[in-house]
């Protein structure tokens, strides 16, 4: 029954874009139909996921399938069901947003193509997180990766977009290569390509280490862990906004899901795995937010924040792996609980931020932060919703970002005390100050983004002509903001689900996790109490303030040291706001600046331009790739360029293979 709901959801969402095709002559209706199909599919799937989370045992389904080594088997354990929720909710809200942001009536065939792949990627992601067979998983993964490419290159007239799309496609396939090798190895060790047979593998030896490293490479590339994040900022900036929200909010998370799934197969992962994840996550978090601080383009900036948040999630996974290595169920619960809750939370607030940024881009026509300003007066609702997302991503209470980061903090702090079966490696406690540093930098970054875009005065005419976003764009943002608030006020409500995911991931009996879960639940109740007190205090103080200042108060020019002719261009810009922090990361950045200094007593022209390219892509990968391409071009003999010769080579290769088979070679 429950797997059937999931299959129905996959079919409905994947075909939602096609449903609109017959109505091409009525574009508005066609788009509404496909959006409705996507939402209906999501609703069906979410029902299935919630039912699966309440079922006594994980619901599963296995059907025969003609693919070699493949069975069409689905399984909804705690992990799959929890991932399924954001995977379905975020795209369905995005498609409603698309009604106003990317109307078919205006964009025609391009919007149709976008909707087809938007539905397809949603269905594929739903299948990825529920598949229980390697072949099915890889097939869904490939559909997801390819649809993602077509979504990125929606506006392919732009050379920048084509480049971002190509980088995405190339890195996605490099990752796929690692995944093929990974599942081949896993299949060989387990003797079957079914995930069920892979549970409880021994984690020692070179093969297990190779599997872990391949998972880190293949899935890390999809998740965007530093230094494998290089495809991500370009792709997120190039895609239409609701596609960016989908990619950043949930597509990246399939990489996290894969990492969790594969590490969950092993009986007792060595502490080194946890150490690698924890350290990698910490580096990803710090440098992700540092790169974000240096960006001028709001969508690139948000994309780098995904790198940061993936780092925080990886830190949680690392702690859980350490907990399993040392036999400490409480650490497993806190690590996995923090990581999985942060997956859900990041999906909501990052989608909210992207949709909010998209509304601003829609209204002003620019993504340059430094050309905006004062937009909150024209777009008060968008501003308020964006602010909720900004506070949530900084981990500020009483919003959901705090709840998940707090769990990761608790896990990290636990390693400082000598508790559990065996003492933990103490370096893990350094996760707490690292998270604090990341939190401080994130707050700085979002003070910059929100301040420069929404507050103050418009820095260009673009900002002055802004208009409030239509209801179809505001409603999805409102839903996402509400989720942020609800999870933030009552984090204890989701703890049983997190404990279930932790039990299914680690293979620990539910009883072993019940104690730590109850303890964390009691603490979460107190967090809720303080959060409620905070909200009450804000309401009371606001009422007090209003009683003191009833009538409309006089307005005056902002104090500017008595300077008589202030202009909006004299405001502190986003670049100068972040400058003090950015210079301290100069060792990682390779910033480029073009300065024409003012000269003479009456200087005529002076200019300053600065940009921070992506260190890994623009300094590392791209030059290396073009060097390889040049080398390959030189190595290729001109003769081989002819089609006939290539056909001949192909045919002779085939013949050789056939001969080898005929002479008794075996294909395996």
């Amino acid at each position, binding site marked *: 029954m429950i797997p059937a709901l999931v299959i129905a959801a996959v079919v409905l969402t994947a075909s939602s874009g096609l449903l609109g095709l017959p109505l091409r002559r009525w574009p508005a209706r066609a788009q509404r139909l496909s959006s409705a199909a996507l939402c209906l599919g999501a609703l069906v799937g979410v029902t299935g996921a919630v039912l699966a989370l309440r079922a006594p045992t994980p619901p599963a389904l296995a059907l025969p399938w003609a693919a070699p080594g493949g069975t069409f088997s689905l399984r909804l354990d705690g992990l799959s069901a929890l991932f399924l929720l954001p995977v379905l909710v975020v795209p369905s809200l995005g498609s409603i947003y698309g009604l106003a942001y990317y109307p078919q009536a205006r964009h025609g065939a391009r919007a149709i193509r976008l909707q087809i792949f938007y539905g397809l990627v949603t269905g594929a992601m739903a299948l990825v997180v529920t598949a229980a067979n390697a072949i099915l998983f890889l097939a869904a993964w490939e559909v997801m990766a390819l649809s993602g490419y077509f979504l990125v290159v929606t506006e392919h007239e732009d050379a920048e977009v084509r480049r971002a799309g190509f980088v995405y496609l190339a890195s996605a396939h490099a990752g796929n290569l690692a995944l093929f090798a990974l599942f081949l190895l896993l299949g060989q060790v387990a003797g079957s390509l079914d995930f069920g047979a892979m549970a409880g593998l021994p984690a020692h030896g070179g093969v297990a280490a190779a599997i872990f490293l391949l998972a880190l490479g293949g899935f890390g590339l999809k998740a965007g862990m530093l230094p494998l994040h290089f495809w991500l900022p370009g792709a997120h900036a190039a895609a239409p906004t609701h596609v960016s929200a989908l990619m950043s909010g949930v597509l990246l998370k399939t990489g996290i899901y894969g990492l969790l799934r594969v590490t969950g197969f092993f009986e007792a992962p060595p502490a080194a795995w946890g150490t690698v994840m924890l350290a990698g996550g910490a580096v990803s978090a710090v440098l992700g937010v540092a790169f974000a601080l240096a960006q001028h383009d709001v969508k690139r900036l948000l994309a780098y924040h995904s790198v940061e948040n993936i780092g925080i999630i990886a830190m949680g996974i690392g702690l859980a792996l350490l907990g399993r290595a040392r036999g400490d169920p409480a650490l497993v619960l806190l690590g996995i609980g923090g990581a999985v809750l942060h997956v859900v939370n990041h999906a909501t607030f990052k989608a909210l931020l992207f949709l909010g940024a998209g509304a601003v881009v829609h209204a002003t026509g620019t993504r340059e932060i430094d050309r905006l300003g*004062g937009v*909150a007066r024209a777009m008060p609702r968008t*501003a308020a919703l964006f602010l909720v997302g900004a*506070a949530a991503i*900084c*981990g*500020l*209470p009483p919003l959901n970002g*705090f709840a998940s980061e*707090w769990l990761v*903090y*608790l896990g990290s*702090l*636990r390693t*400082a*005390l000598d508790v559990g079966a065996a003492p933990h490696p*103490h370096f893990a*406690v350094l996760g*707490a*100050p*690292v*998270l*604090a*540093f990341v*939190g*401080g930098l994130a*707050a*700085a970054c*979002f*003070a*910059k983004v*929100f*301040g420069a875009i929404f*507050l*103050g*005065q418009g820095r260009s005419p673009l900002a002055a002509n802004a208009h409030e976003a239509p209801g179809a764009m505001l409603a999805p943002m409102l839903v996402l903001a509400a989720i942020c608030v609800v999870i933030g006020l009552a984090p204890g409500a989701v703890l049983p689900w997190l404990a279930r995911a932790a039990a299914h991931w680690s293979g620990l009996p539910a009883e072993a996790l019940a104690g730590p879960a109850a*303890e964390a639940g*009691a*603490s979460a109740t*107190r967090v809720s*109490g*303080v959060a409620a*007190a*905070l909200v009450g*205090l804000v309401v009371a*103080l606001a009422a007090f*303030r209003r009683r*003191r*200042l009833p009538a409309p*108060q006089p307005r*005056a020019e*902002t104090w*500017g040291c008595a300077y008589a002719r202030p202009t909006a261009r004299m*405001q*502190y810009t986003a670049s100068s*706001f972040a*400058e*003090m*922090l950015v210079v*301290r990361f100069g060792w990682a950045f390779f910033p480029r600046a073009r300065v024409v200094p003012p000269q003479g007593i009456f200087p005529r022209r002076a200019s300053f331009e600065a940009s921070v390219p992506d260190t890994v892509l623009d300094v590392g990968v791209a030059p290396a790739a073009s060097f390889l391409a040049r080398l390959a071009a030189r190595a290729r003999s001109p003769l081989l360029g002819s089609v006939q010769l290539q056909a001949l080579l192909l045919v002779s290769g085939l013949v050789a293979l056939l001969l080898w088979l005929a002479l008794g070679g075996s294909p395996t």
Partner: protein
Amino acid sequence: MIRAAISFVAFLALSPLLLGVVNRVKALFAGRTGPPLLQLYFDLHRLLGKGAVYGVATTWVFRAGPVIGLAAVIAAGLVMSFGGAPALVAFPGDFVLFAYLLGLARFFTALAALDTGSSFEGMGAAREVTFSSFAEPALFLCLVVMARASGALSLSGMLGDELAAAWHVQGPALLLAAVALLGVALAENARIPVDDPNTHLELTMIHEVMVLDHSGPDLALVQYGAALKLFLFGALVVRLTLGFPIASPALSLLAFLGGMLGFGVAIGTVESTVARLRLVRIPQLLVGATVLSAFALVLLLR
């Protein structure tokens, strides 16, 4: 519970007095009589009776800044343990909530500053968020040291009766942490050598320039919030340095208040005798505090 409630009320009521002590000490050093000890109470009362003027660029964010800022600091007081008394709310990891509530206050103060559209206030906000992101790791390292030394993960446990035993065993580490914590407290509360609360030159200010445009009741909320925040950090430093157990709750409260008086005198002394650092040196001070507390942690974990 009653003890916690009394401490909390003392926190709300006595915070402005602490600033009065600091200012009186500074006046004595300068050879002046100085303002009365209760000056901030008079100021708050006067400001609450006044109207307010708003900049033309400001929106509701500017009005929300002081309200959320004060509410967050009061909420942070809910989890703080004052002088060894248990906090009103205590749970493992509550100091994370404490630090993030102060972060919430800072975030909205910075946004309110940016809302004015003034480049001075933008400058102040940029400095505030920059320096605080360097202060956060130091603060957390100090708290981790205290957690490790006392074996508890809640502020009430860390600052409770186990602290005395911890001083016997882990004295040097706690001493280093206390020094680092004092540095963080000075930075977070905009005191010399990081920031000068009395300066009149916008270009050199950090916290004061951010609240330059607030007036009337809004300014009262901001100033009261700043006093509460100083009291919170004072409570942390004082209890850490005076960690001995006292059986009688009343005596213990008295000892704590005496310690807070000493904290006020110490801040006033530092402000009168130390020169303000150049802006570029401030991150070095904070990184220094981070290194000190990291060293303390190493001592504990060796």
